[in-house]
Every structure is written in C-alpha cells, then in structure tokens.
C-alpha cells in the first residue's frame, strides 16, 4: 500500500471507515494513459458517483476495481486488503459486484435461472449430495429458489420469472442484472450507467430502487451515470473525471458550481 492510500484510510477511519479506497490509480495501455491519479474512497452505505464526458475513463476505473483490468499503478483497498491486480472472480467473491454498460445476462437461461447461477458460490452442498438428491441438497435448492423469488419481487420481475432473460424489455433486463448482483450479498454494488436506455418513469423507479438497496441491504453503491438529474438526486458525493484525470470531487452542490466542471461539460469561452 502506498503512503497516500494509507493516509487516506487513516483519515477516513476517523470519520466513518471507508469500505473502498482507491489511491493514485493509473491504467496505461501501451503509450496511452487512460486513467491517472484517481483517488477517492467510498464510505459504508454511501452512494458515490463518477461522472465525466465520454471517454473520460470512468469505465476503465470500474474495470480496474472489479479486476477485469490489472492497474499499472496505484492501490485499491477494500476491507483493509489491497485488491489491485487480483482476479475478477476473487474480487467479486470478496463482495464487490458490478453491472455492465451493455447488459450481460445469460440470455438463453430463464430469469430465475440467472439468479440461481449467481448464488453458485453460496450453495455449499457438494457434488455427492446433488447426485444422491439428499434432503440437504433439496433444501438448499429450495432456499435458492426462495431467495430468487424474494429478489424478483423486489425488482418487480416476478411475473416474467420463467421467461428467457433475452426476451425481457431493456428496463427489465437492467433490473434483473441489479437483482443478480444483489443476490450475491455484496458490500459494494457498482453500476455502470444503470439509467442508460431507460424512460423517465423507469429512471425514477431506479432511483428509488438504489436508495432502497442502500437502506435495507446496507450496501454501498458506486455508479457511473450520464443522467444528471439522477446523479444529483441520489449521490452523496461525486467524482468528476476528464481525460482520465480527476477534476473535481465533493457533494452534488459543490460539484455543480465548480468552474472546472462547468468548463468540461459546457466548454470555456
């Protein structure tokens, strides 16, 4: 862990311990520096947003945190452990799950099967139990189905539970992807443009869903979003990026009035 990240951890531990702290993150693709000097932390039960113009490197930051890219420098400390460069499934297993900009469901499987697959690591019964169809196995399968039903109710997809996921409407697919993340019982939920392609009513429902998840499931949320009304409405803090670098950070009010942010979005005179 570098000195800065350690400092950041120490500083925030005084307030409320952050569950994620990113320090001086850098991602370089050959000669191109996609992300450089990104430092922020997400507190417990906080909704933290990353915004910025297209190509600012927001999704690259996501890919580094979730382990799909191996950052070239910097620290990502989650739950006191530096997870930078670890494999994606290992990071997901520690409690950081994410959605994707272009929804990635198991399209030929049914909605409920999508939720069963997500519970794979929680199902503890071994191969032998399943082969012999023991009572423990039947109970575990039944519980998995019940948990799936609970989450389908929560995102109001119960009616389409037995349909193929690929046949759902776009809004339904987005909600299913969030439910599939939540059923793994994460500590940090990362949403990559969750409102993209949603109509205004669906966006309002998404707003409520995210708050509800934070309040009832005590999950922290890190999101990338272009829909400014949604971001300003639900975020506790916002990081603004441009050309791979941070240009502002703070509460929605502070960010909204920051001259750098206004220049980045509207251009300077």
């Amino acid at each position, binding site marked *: 862990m570098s000195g800065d990240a350690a400092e950041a951890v120490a500083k925030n531990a005084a307030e409320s311990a952050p569950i994620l702290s990113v320090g001086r993150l850098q991602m370089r693709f050959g000669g191109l520096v996609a992300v450089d000097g990104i430092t922020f932390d997400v507190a417990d039960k906080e909704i933290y947003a990353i915004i910025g113009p297209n190509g600012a490197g927001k999704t690259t930051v996501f890919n580094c945190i*979730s382990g799909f890219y191996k950052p070239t420098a910097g620290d990502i400390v989650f739950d006191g452990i530096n997870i930078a460069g670890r494999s994606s*499934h290992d990071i997901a297993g520690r409690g950081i799950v994410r959605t994707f900009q272009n929804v*990635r469901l*198991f399209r030929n*499987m049914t909605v*409920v*099967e999508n939720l069963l697959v997500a519970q794979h690591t929680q199902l503890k019964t071994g191969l032998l139990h*399943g082969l012999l169809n023991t009572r423990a196995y039947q109970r575990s399968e039944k519980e998995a189905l019940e948990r799936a039903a609970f989450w389908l109710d929560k995102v109001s997809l*119960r009616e389409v539970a037995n349909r193929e996921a690929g046949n759902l409407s776009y809004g339904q697919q987005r909600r299913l992807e969030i439910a599939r993340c939540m059923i793994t019982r994460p500590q940090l939920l990362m949403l990559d443009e969750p409102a993209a392609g949603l109509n205004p009513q669906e966006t309002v429902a998404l707003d409520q869903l995210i708050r509800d998840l934070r309040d009832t499931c005590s999950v922290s949320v890190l999101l990338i979003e272009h829909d400014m009304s949604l971001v300003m409405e639900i975020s506790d803090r916002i990081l603004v990026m441009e050309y791979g670098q941070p240009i502002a950070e703070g509460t929605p009010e502070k960010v909204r009035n920051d001259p750098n942010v206004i220049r980045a979005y509207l251009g300077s005179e």
Partner: protein
Amino acid sequence: MRETTKTKILKDAFIAAAVTAVLTFPMVGMRLNVESTGLVLHKNFLWPTVAVLVVFLARLVLPFVLIPKVSVPAAWTQKAVDYKKWWLGAFVVLALVWPFTPLGSGAMVTAMTMAMIYILLALGLNIVVGYAGLLDLGHAAFYAIGAYTYALLNLHFGLGFWEALPLAGLSAGLFSILLGFPILRLRGDYLAIVTLGFGEIVRITLNNWDSLTHGPDGINNISKPTLLGYEITRRSRVEDGTTLWQALGIDYNHIYQQLVLYFIAFLLVVVAAFLISRLVKMPVGRAWEALREDEIACRSLALNPTIIKLTAFSLGCMFAGFAGAFYAAFLGSVTPASFEFIESAIILSIVVLGGMGSQRGVILAALALTLLPEFARGFAEYRMLIFGAVMVLMMVWRPQGLWPASRRRVELPS
C-alpha cells in the same frame, strides 16, 4: 397448426429425404462388378428408395409425436415429462430384451457391447463439449489411460474389474486435471490443440515405454469382469474357483459370456446417463451453461471459470476412464493401436451428430455410427467418406444435431 409450421415440416421432410437419397443411391444402389465383359454397373434402387420413403415419412410424423413445443401450459409439461419417462422405460426394456430374440447372435451382441462403450465415451465427451463448450480433440487419451490403468493393476496386483473400475476413472480424471489446470486458465481454443497433442503423446508413450506397457504388443490376458463374485470365463483363473456357470449348473457357452458382458456395459451406460442427467440439473450444471453463455458475467458473479471448466473436463474424462477399463476387460487385451486419433474423432463426431448437450441424441448417434459399419461391411472403405459427408451436411442443415436437447428449465412456481 399454423400454415407456416406445416410448410416447414414439409420442407424439413423433403430435405431429410434428399440427404438420404444423396447418401444411399450411389453407395447402396449402384455397384461395380468385374465380369467377363469388363466392369459392369449393377443398379438396384429398391432399398435406397425404401430408405428415402421411410426417412420422409418419419420426418413428417416426428413433429407430431415429439414433446410439444415452447410455452405450453403447466399441465402439458407434466404430461411431457411422463411421456419421456415412458420412452426411457421402453428403451431400457428394448435394450434388455433384444438379445433373446433371433437378432441376438454372438456377433450382434459383441457389436452392441462395443456400441455401449462408445455411448459411454460419448456421454463423457458430451459433458466437456456439449455442456461446458470446451473442444476436446484427445478424448481417446483418457480412454487409453483408463484401459491401461485396469490392465496394469490387473497384471501386477491382480485387481479385479470392479475394484479397478473406480481407480481407472480416478486416474483418467487425475490426468485430465493435471492437463487441464494450466490450459483451462487460457482462452478456449488452446484446449483443442493441447488435447490433440496429449492424445498423441499418450499413444506414443504407451507404444514406446516397453518396460511398463509392453510396447506395441500391449498387455494380454486381462481378467474379465466377475458377476456377483463369480467368474464368467470357461475355467476359473484361480485354482478350485467356481465360475458363474458351475454355480448355476449350466454348461459354458461363449454366447453367455458375451451376454453378461453386454449387460454389464449396458448397466454402466445406464448409471452414467443417470448421473450425468443429474449433474446437468445441479448448480454445477447451471454454472457450465452460464459459462458457455457469458464468461465475463460469470467472473463478475464470483464464479471461478477455471474451476468450473475443470469439473466438466475431469468428469467427462472420468467417464472415458470407466469406458477404457471396461474395454480392457471386454477384449482381454489392450494395445496402443486401439487409441489412435481416429477414436477421438469418432467420439467427437458422435457428439456433434447426436446434438451437443443432448444425451438422447448422443446415444442415438453412437448406436448409428457404431452399428451401421457392422451392417454395411460391403463398403467399409467408404466409411470415412460417408462420415465426412454426413458431418458437412449436418453442419449446413442441422447444426443442433439429430435429436437436439430440449433445454431443461428450472421453473419458479407462482
């Protein structure tokens, strides 16, 4: 039924009949004979015509007989399940009864036993290729490892078939883990190349490691399986041991021994088919399917792709190990020549022909590909040619296989 479905069925039937015609007319209907006047072309189109008609009619009737299509009411699905059980029962009864009909000649029983071995191999490979979507071009290697495991255990330690069977499966599984662990971390295509190479390495090793495997001569005089603890050979291998026939008080007849071997092979197939059909419904089966669909999504949900692929690969190879052990016991000898690349190719063709991920299709295709050459010895030279033609035609017209799997869904009761 809607008009479009009708025309589709009709079109399917015509295509199937045309394929049959292309395959049967030149191969079966025409024959070159050397006579005093030179080469004479004999034409006899009776049987090809019958075949074409049968295929055409069967294809017409099939959609009406088979399980109803998508989105049926719950009550119907229940019926379909009952129907399927009935079908399975009929298949089992047929497999048990036919040897006692006039069909059950010694040659036929032996051919069917070989077919059972191929079913077992193909069911195993179907896990790897069909369910997990990994291309394995060296399945015969694990078949060989199973066969040699039993042969060596029998030769050196005198282990019987039933004691060695789990060990043969384990050793094939263990080798597959050693091979798969480094390879399955990489992208999919590498497995095909590595297994292809591994198949050759195993065969060449068996061929050259004289001190262990006796080289090209192989290992002979391997014990046959016992039945209920009795030997099924003419004379007991141990002194004053009792054979099954002495215990039953009947005279030894070679066909009895063949029958017992056939039933043991059938038993292995039934057990394998049952275990695999359970595996597919279990969490691990769902994970295989999810991984085939979207590996990145799986990783983001904490599923470890390497481990999941490895379970499929090692389980599939384990069944090849079982098949190998039975093969060694059945023939009584193993030689490296039995495990050439062509064996891997045949097993893979069976899986592709039957329908990847479809157990019933794989069983059907295994029967077809192993029994047809028995019936049609006359044009054995054309076997590979027909194989190739069938494969190409299948890829063009029916990539989902002869009898594709209907996906088994988990339903949430409302």
